[in-house]
């Protein structure tokens, strides 16, 4: 008996291939006995076309139904026909070949044990490529396509029994369909056919694939970008996998699976970060949470399985994908990735391009400058203090909680303490040594960073070298090195790397992650730069065509700075956020002229003495230094006129932002140290200013091309001459920075610290106005990581500080105050009276007064004069551990949360930044047509065919790096957009700028070989 075939055609939305699908169904060699069309939200035009095809039943639905639910509705509308009826599941995008039904029906007729026969699905846009033919599972239950994206050369035509297959075009026995209760409604898109096949197998039936029957399946360009589609696909896949896991697992294993959902989600999120697919993380969590919470579909699925269970799971084991097959597929994926990665990385030619020589020259200069630091275990002077001796303490200072400075308080840590912790961990045996390494390595590292940043914009070795060296001898850097300002030095070293990674971040997740970390580090070291950097980021994100990767760049910085921001704002001192981290070091005022010359704190006046000696004071140092920097300034100014002017204007915009930051910083003093108010250090803004100037000069030199050697060398020479006095001051030891002495507290105190690490010393320093500065120190002095801007910018004193002030004032006076009780309250064991700096009369008088008063105080016993001042110890050597101990649990639960979130964000960014995702990203590929909706074309399988077209694209990508600006491009863009040009490789993007947003249209423009390929966001 010939079974009747009822076709169920599902039409959803606007179906562009409906016409062809209907024709193909009607044109089958073996006619369909009944046609049921299920129309979900179909527009009227398509509805009329459906009606013209005269189906036997039409089911309309206003909701968007998924394939399984639509088929279910269609089958329900079609009354039970003769026994042995066959259901043919079709879609508006499936176009069966004329004899497909005949072949499929023949298969079902000849093999009674087969309940479902699936055709060979071919891609409609590439007719000789197989889209899907059969699905299976691995040993652990992950679904795989048996055949995906391969060219059809008949290699799989012997395939018959499969575990499951895609339901599109499948011919199913009606009886079996009813028994198995159709497709699982909890699997709307992915794995529904596989699940049907598994249940059919478990019920003792067979599912086959019939290669002789071909059905073309058309891609549905649903207008969304490739990235969004890929993300949705991942979520669906993961949901399906989790659902099947819960549905197929044995009873005892269910609680284990349920509990492991969240930890697995965390681990898989980390894996997604490592493999540079952070867009998959939301889908991962959505799937996990959904499966955890919605138990109904799992229960229904398990019931469905149990009802028809006939065979055991071991029966279908042979149909699973064997492990060696899985290994082979993975090896194929790796190869495909390697091929893809081959064209993605740019060759920077470090050695061949002169980078080695640049760094070598900078290293020699640095060694000459810091000869006195070689062999010393620490560096001191200016704003430098030792770091904590234990790495654990270093990290403790970076966490929210007890700020152990002075009398101590609970508050947020500076993000700079985190940077110091990282730095100190690099030399974990002696964290303070890291500062020595930083000092000696600052100049070479800056040269390296400048060279790399220049390498992004030009490949002339000479220009790269000039830029690198000019960055390494920048006045802000050398003045910061001379003055002992570690935060400013770090910010200067990191800035070119930030620029470098931001340029690369447009198309690469690891580069974006690196940019995010560097952004956080630079903002931590120089908070005054935050407004300028945020502005640059905004401009880059707005102007870039792919802003997705830019959006996350400020996130680590925001997370690290958030507790501090909250604390400062709640306290009412929001301007304190601009204060420089580290030891508050007063600096002289910076005049506007010094700012233009990029010298912080009027340091160019170092020329005054030698100039007076040489010329007798006829030439002002300002004029001399200005004339030395003039070549560089001319080169920078010329950038607006030459080819590549947009990049030049962008660079000058950066310079302007840096200059404005420095000028504003010179006017702001929000931190105090004793009687001094501490200005915000202008050097960080001047570093940015210098960056912009160098960028503009680079643009000019690049445009000059072959003749750039002489102007570049002259500019560099001018810069070197300008900073010569500063360099000589450093090398001869007359600068503030000095090798660290063996200790920062008197030896007597150090000996006591060996027994009790929390020994408290009260340090009294006479101030120039006759006052006294009283600082409470624990252990061997305050370390650099213990410094806190919250403490330095506080405008009011808390109760503890007032008590300490009373105690100090009375110690320095003849008084009836109970100094013994006062000293005990803070656990003070030593009092150190510092010497008055200079010959300030009032300071000397205060020092004398305090000395006399403390000499007469019975509670203090003079120990003697030390290099740090006059030392007294308390007469009563009681136990002070209780008074000096750090309160336990100071941060509280809030602190633990804050630290946890910060750690999570930083570690996540680190994972994303780790360079093991080469080739996983579709950085530079043409926009591939979005994967076929409802049919899973696995990305890995598609890689093979994409790799071939990749190669052609990579050739173009490599060429455009060397291309120069088009001279005839009209300058319609404003400076804001040009700022972004600085951060994107100028040639390709700008050249694409005008014609239009569509990548395809760009092909038609004047110079197609210099276009880059728009990569889809993956």
């Amino acid at each position, binding site marked *: 008996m010939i079974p009747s075939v009822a076709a169920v055609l599902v039409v959803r939305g606007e179906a562009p291939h409906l016409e062809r699908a209907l024709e193909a169904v009607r044109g089958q060699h073996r006619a369909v006995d009944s046609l049921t069309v299920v129309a979900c939200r179909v527009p009227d035009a398509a509805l009329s076309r459906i009606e013209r095809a005269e189906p036997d039943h039409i089911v309309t639905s206003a909701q968007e139904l998924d394939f399984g639910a639509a088929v279910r509705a269609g089958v329900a509308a079609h009354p039970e026909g003769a026994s042995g009826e066959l259901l043919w599941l079709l879609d508006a995008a499936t176009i069966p070949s004329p004899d497909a039904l005949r072949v499929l029906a023949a298969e079902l007729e000849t093999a009674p044990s087969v309940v479902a026969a699936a055709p060979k699905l071919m891609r409609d846009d590439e007719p000789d490529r197989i889209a899907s033919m059969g699905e299976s599972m691995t040993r652990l239950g992950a679904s795989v396509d048996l055949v995906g994206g391969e060219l059809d050369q008949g290699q799989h035509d012997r395939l018959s029994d499969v575990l499951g297959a895609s339901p599109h075009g499948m011919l199913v026995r009606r009886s079996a369909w009813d028994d198995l209760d159709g497709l699982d409604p909890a699997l709307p898109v992915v794995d529904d056919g596989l699940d049907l096949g598994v249940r059919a197998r478990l019920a003792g039936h067979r599912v086959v694939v019939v290669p002789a029957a071909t059905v073309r399946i058309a891609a549905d360009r649903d207008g969304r970008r490739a990235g969004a589609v890929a993300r949705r696909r991942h979520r669906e896949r993961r949901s399906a996998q989790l659902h099947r896991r819960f549905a197929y697992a044995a009873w005892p294993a269910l609680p284990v699976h349920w509990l492991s959902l969240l930890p697995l989600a965390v681990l898989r999120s980390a894996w997604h970060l490592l493999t540079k697919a952070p867009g998959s993380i939301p889908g991962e969590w959505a799937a996990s949470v959904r499966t955890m919470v919605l138990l109904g579909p799992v229960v229904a699925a398990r019931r469905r399985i149990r009802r028809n269970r006939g065979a055991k799971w071991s029966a279908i084991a042979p149909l699973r994908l064997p492990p060696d097959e899985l290994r082979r597929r993975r090896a194929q994926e790796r190869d495909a990735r390697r091929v893809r990665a081959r064209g993605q990385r740019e060759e920077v030619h470090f050695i061949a391009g002169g980078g080695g020589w640049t760094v070598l020259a900078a290293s020699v200069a640095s060694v000459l400058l810091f000869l006195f630091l070689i062999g010393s275990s620490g560096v001191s002077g200016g704003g430098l203090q030792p770091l904590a001796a234990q790495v654990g303490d270093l990290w403790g200072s970076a966490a929210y909680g007890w700020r152990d400075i002075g009398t101590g308080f609970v508050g947020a840590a500076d993000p700079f303490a985190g940077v110091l912790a990282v730095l100190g961990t690099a030399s974990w045996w002696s964290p303070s040594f890291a500062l020595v390494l930083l000092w000696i390595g600052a100049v070479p590292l800056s040269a390296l960073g400048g060279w790399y940043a220049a390498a992004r914009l030009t490949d002339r070795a000479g220009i790269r070298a000039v830029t690198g060296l000019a960055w390494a001898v920048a006045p802000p850097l050398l003045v910061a090195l001379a003055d002992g300002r570690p935060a400013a030095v770090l910010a200067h070293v990191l800035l070119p790397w930030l620029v470098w990674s931001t340029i690369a971040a447009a198309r690469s997740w690891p580069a974006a992650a690196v940019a995010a970390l560097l952004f956080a580090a630079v903002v931590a070291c120089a908070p005054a730069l935050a407004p300028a950097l945020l502005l640059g980021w905004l401009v880059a994100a707005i102007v870039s065509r792919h802003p997705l990767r830019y959006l996350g760049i400020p996130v680590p910085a925001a997370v690290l700075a958030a507790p501090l921001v909250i604390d400062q704002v709640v306290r009412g001192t929001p301007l304190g956020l601009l204060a420089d981290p580290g030891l508050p070091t007063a600096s002289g005022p910076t005049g506007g002229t010094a700012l233009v010359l990029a010298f912080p704190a009027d340091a160019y006046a170092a020329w005054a003495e030698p100039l007076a000696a040489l010329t007798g004071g006829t030439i002002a140092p300002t004029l001399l230094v200005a004339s030395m920097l003039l070549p560089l300034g001319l080169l920078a100014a010329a950038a607006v*006129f030459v080819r590549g*002017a947009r990049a030049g204007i962008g660079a*000058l915009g950066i310079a302007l932002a840096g200059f404005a930051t420095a000028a504003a910083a010179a006017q702001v003093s929000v931190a105090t140290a004793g009687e001094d108010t501490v200005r915000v250090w202008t050097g960080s803004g001047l570093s940015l200013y210098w960056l912009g100037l160098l960028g503009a000069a680079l643009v000019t030199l690049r445009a000059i091309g072959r003749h750039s050697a002489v102007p570049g060398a002259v500019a560099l020479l001018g810069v070197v001459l300008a900073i010569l006095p500063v360099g000589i001051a450093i090398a001869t030891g007359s600068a503030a920075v000095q090798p660290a002495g063996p200790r920062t507290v008197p030896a007597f105190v150090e000996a006591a610290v060996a027994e009790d690490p929390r020994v408290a010393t009260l340090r009294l320093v006479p101030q120039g106005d006759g*006052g*006294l500065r009283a600082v409470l120190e624990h252990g061997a002095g305050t370390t650099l990581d213990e410094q806190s801007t919250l403490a330095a910018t506080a405008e009011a004193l808390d109760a503890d500080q007032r008590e300490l002030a*009373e105690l100090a004032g*009375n110690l320095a006076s003849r008084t009836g105050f109970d100094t013994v009780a006062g000293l005990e309250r803070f656990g003070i064991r030593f009092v150190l009276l510092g010497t008055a700096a200079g010959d300030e009369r009032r300071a000397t008088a205060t020092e004398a007064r305090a000395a006399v008063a403390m000499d007469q105080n019975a509670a203090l016993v003079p120990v003697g004069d030390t290099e740090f001042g006059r030392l007294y110890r308390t007469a009563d050597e009681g136990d002070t551990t209780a008074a000096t101990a750090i309160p336990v649990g100071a941060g509280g639960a809030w602190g633990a949360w804050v630290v946890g979130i910060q750690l999570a964000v930083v570690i996540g960014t680190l994972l994303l930044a780790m360079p093991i995702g080469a080739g996983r990203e579709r950085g530079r590929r043409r926009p591939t047509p979005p994967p076929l909706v409802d049919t899973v074309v696995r990305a890995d399988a598609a890689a093979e065919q994409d790799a071939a077209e990749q190669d052609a694209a990579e050739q173009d990508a490599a060429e455009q790096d060397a291309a120069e600006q088009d001279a005839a491009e009209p300058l319609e863009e404003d400076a804001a957009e040009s700022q972004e040009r600085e951060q994107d490789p100028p040639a390709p993007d700008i050249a694409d700028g005008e014609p239009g947003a569509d990548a395809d249209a760009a092909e038609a423009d004047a110079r197609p070989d210099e276009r880059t390929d728009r990569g889809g966001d993956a």
Partner: protein
Amino acid sequence: MIAARTVALVGARIGAGVLALGVCATVAVVAAVEPLPEVSVEPPSVRVLPADSQEVRACAGPLLALAEDSAEATGATALGAPSLVDGAFPDGAAIEEQSALALDVPGADALGGVAWYATAPGEVEPGLLAAASSQGVATERVAGFAAAACTEPVAEAWLAGGAVSVGRTTVLSLVNPGEVAATVRVEVFSELGRLESAGGSLVVAPGTQRVVALSGIAPDARSPVVHVTSTGGRVAATMQQSIVRGLDPGGVAIVSAGDAPATDLVIPGVPRGISGDGDADHVGDDDAVSVVRLLAPDDEDADATVSFHDAAGATLGSVEVALRAGLVADVPVPTLSATVVDVRVRADGPVVAAARVTTGDPDDDAGSDFAWYAAAPELVDAVAVAIAPGPSPRLVLASDGEARAVRVTEGSGAERVVEVPAGGSTSVTVSGGDVLRLDDATGVHASVTYADATESAAYAVLPPGALDAPIRVYPR
């Protein structure tokens, strides 16, 4: 043939470039030239007033004559009892007097009067207890008038004055009102150099007075400056000097402590006296000439400018002096037009200064007297001044460099505000036996002077001892 489009493009580019450069240049110029608004914070600090301070004022005691009594050749005899004035603010504070009868002065008769005044801890704020003593004598050998404020015991004092030579006797008096023995080192600088008391330090037992003849330490110091340092306890140091010219008494004076060595010193209210016409040679023989005594006590030479100003601050004359380290110089006062001047000393290193002026004519039968005018230290805020009874007492207030307005409250309660011109001085007539309170006296140098035809005396108003003054503490 250049296309019009190219020309337009190039022109547009040049225009845009010029515009961009213009913006940059404007910003640079504005930043360089314009004063931008500043944002700054005040360093937080606490002004700590020493808690519960006990005020003590030890008096110079009566004028002494050495070896008056042939039986006690090494002893000192009091030439009468001084008149004492004391007072404190607030008025009701209890002032405890330590009678000099209980003093154990080695080698001297029991002296009358009060040794020192003290208040209970916390009763009186620092500086608001004041006392002074004055005494006039007229014997065969010692005649004149001397006055001194009762001072706080200190750890270090500079006494510029005195003389040791034929007919000039100087006696150093050290009073220790405390409970701890004071080990005192006496350094004498003279025109010949530095001398220290033989035998090292003197010990002044608690509650005693020690009297030392300067001739025992520095036998030939015509121009001594005495530096007293005390460790352990503290002492109040004064010197008494008497002059006999031939057989006629030439006057007495008490030298009390003045300002510590500094680069700027003010000696307010110095009468003109007998001018030396700038001739240093006269000085050695004739100590009737008005001199300014200068010393650079550190190891370095110093160049000093001594200028004489009238009450408005105008300079009447000035003298440049090159001081050798550790050598005392007596600079004769040039002819001046005003009768009372302020002496201001400005040096490039710390110096000690004082002025000696003789009143009356030494050759005259009516007699003459002299007085030492010490450099008055800068006052802070509030201080009490006791005016000992004497001829024509005046309170002279000199400002540092700014105009000041000092509120003077007399013992009767009457208040008035005295304006002191910048760089000048104001002289206020006060009544002997009164205790005044000066408020808002920061930056003002004050002295109390007495002068009539044949008698003169002076003492400086001292601010609260360094150890009692409030101190500003920065706890960060």
